[in-house]
């Protein structure tokens, strides 16, 4: 294939001019979804990890069950169930809601695990020092344990946030007009591969800086350790 044809196939200027607004709309929706998911899933996961550190065996059993379930299940399964199955049982959720709900629960499971690992890494003397000064369980958690535990969990939390944002592409399966959905519908209207290129570039524009940033941050952390 000549370079010329390669460019008109994947970088056709006319197609770019026609479809870039659609891709931008998709980017806005992807960003909105990402924020909604990260806020809800992050808060839920953090709360579950805090609850788990209270160490009530019965409750912890259910927290572990919850985390295992959402870490082991491919997210497309609940997405299809909620979107296609629930209406037949009399409850209709929008595609946006289904995607937001599913991915928030998936993120919550991973955040719970990361935060719990951080909490567990704090030496028991920290709890004892705080409790023996008269601080209650919640105060100790908020002012002594979490500030240290979250710092430990930060790298895996950022990785999870990036990963879950990438998963918003699953919305295309149920027609959430996020980037991938916009790009592939534009591709089928136009019969050109250029919108797909635009979509891929849009994802790169969002994630490449994050990936490079996290690589940089990790290497800095590694130096500090060494």
């Amino acid at each position, binding site marked *: 294939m000549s370079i010329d044809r390669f460019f008109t196939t994947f970088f056709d200027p006319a197609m770019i001019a026609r479809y870039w607004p659609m891709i931008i709309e998709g980017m806005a929706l992807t960003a909105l979804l990402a924020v909604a998911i990260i806020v809800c899933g992050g808060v839920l996961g953090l709360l579950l990890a805090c609850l788990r550190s209270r160490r009530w065996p019965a409750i912890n059993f259910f927290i572990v069950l919850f985390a295992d379930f959402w870490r082991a299940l491919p997210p497309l399964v609940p997405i299809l169930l909620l979107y296609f199955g629930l209406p037949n049982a009399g409850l209709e959720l929008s595609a946006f809601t289904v995607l937001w709900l599913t991915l928030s629960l998936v993120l919550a499971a991973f955040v719970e695990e990361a935060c719990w690992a951080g909490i567990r890494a704090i030496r028991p003397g920290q709890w004892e020092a705080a*409790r023996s000064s008269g601080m209650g369980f919640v105060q100790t958690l908020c002012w002594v344990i979490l500030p240290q535990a979250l710092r430990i969990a930060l790298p895996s939390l950022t990785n999870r946030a990036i990963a879950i944002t990438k998963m918003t592409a699953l919305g295309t399966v149920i027609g959430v007009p996020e980037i991938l959905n916009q790009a592939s519908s534009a591709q089928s209207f136009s019969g050109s591969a250029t919108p797909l290129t635009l979509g891929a570039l849009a994802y790169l524009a969002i994630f490449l800086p994050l990936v490079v940033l996290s690589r940089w941050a990790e290497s800095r952390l590694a130096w500090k350790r060494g």
Partner: protein
Amino acid sequence: MSAANPAQRAAASPQAPYPILELIKLHKRFGDHVVLEAVDLRIEPGELVCVIGPSGSGKSTMLRLCNQLERACGGQVIFDGQDLTSSLVSIDRVRRQIGMVFQQFNLYPHLRALGNVTLALKRVAGLPRREAQAVALDALERVGMREHANAWPSTLSGGQQQRVAIARAIAMSPKIVLFDEPTSALDPTLVGSVLAVMRRLREEGMTMLVVTHEMQFARAVADRVVFMADGKVIEQGPPEQLFTSPRDPRTAAFISGESN
């Protein structure tokens, strides 16, 4: 409530008629392993009591029972007239009146020295920020760490960290401070500075219960020395009597072993 009434505290001499802390027939087991067996102990206000004994004698466990970091299997812990083993007692309210200093310091690594001291003043005593800082700086002054108020714990030596930990405990104006082997994790050259601070607190009239391996300190500074072995209080008495003419052969053996 007889809480923090300064006049009352000042009136409390070492010979006061009631103990500030009393352990009655305390039992503690971990699994089948008996750690404490029928331990009785009375601490009067203003007293400095040192607890000595071989490792594994249960002395640290006994200290941790005094503020209920461990739960007893039987017996009572009476602090200031309240039975702490009762489920009716709000343990968080009691603990603010009991300071504790740990072997491993346990400073909060994410807070500077000053922040370590102000945290409980703000969150537990409810002092406004400025007031908490004033109280904390005063406490740091008393342990000679005021000029390090802005230092991070990781930049301080072990002795300095332990002095900050002592400031953290005394800033809450506790009625008693528990010391759990406060110098055992220290470099030998740094032990002196921490013991000097404890000696000063003694002169200020602070009530202290100290689990320690520092025989010289116990002998020179304590009002009373308690010797524990195998989970029991073997004997107790004024330091001179206990160190020069112990009644129990186990005490004598331990003391001659430690002084070599």
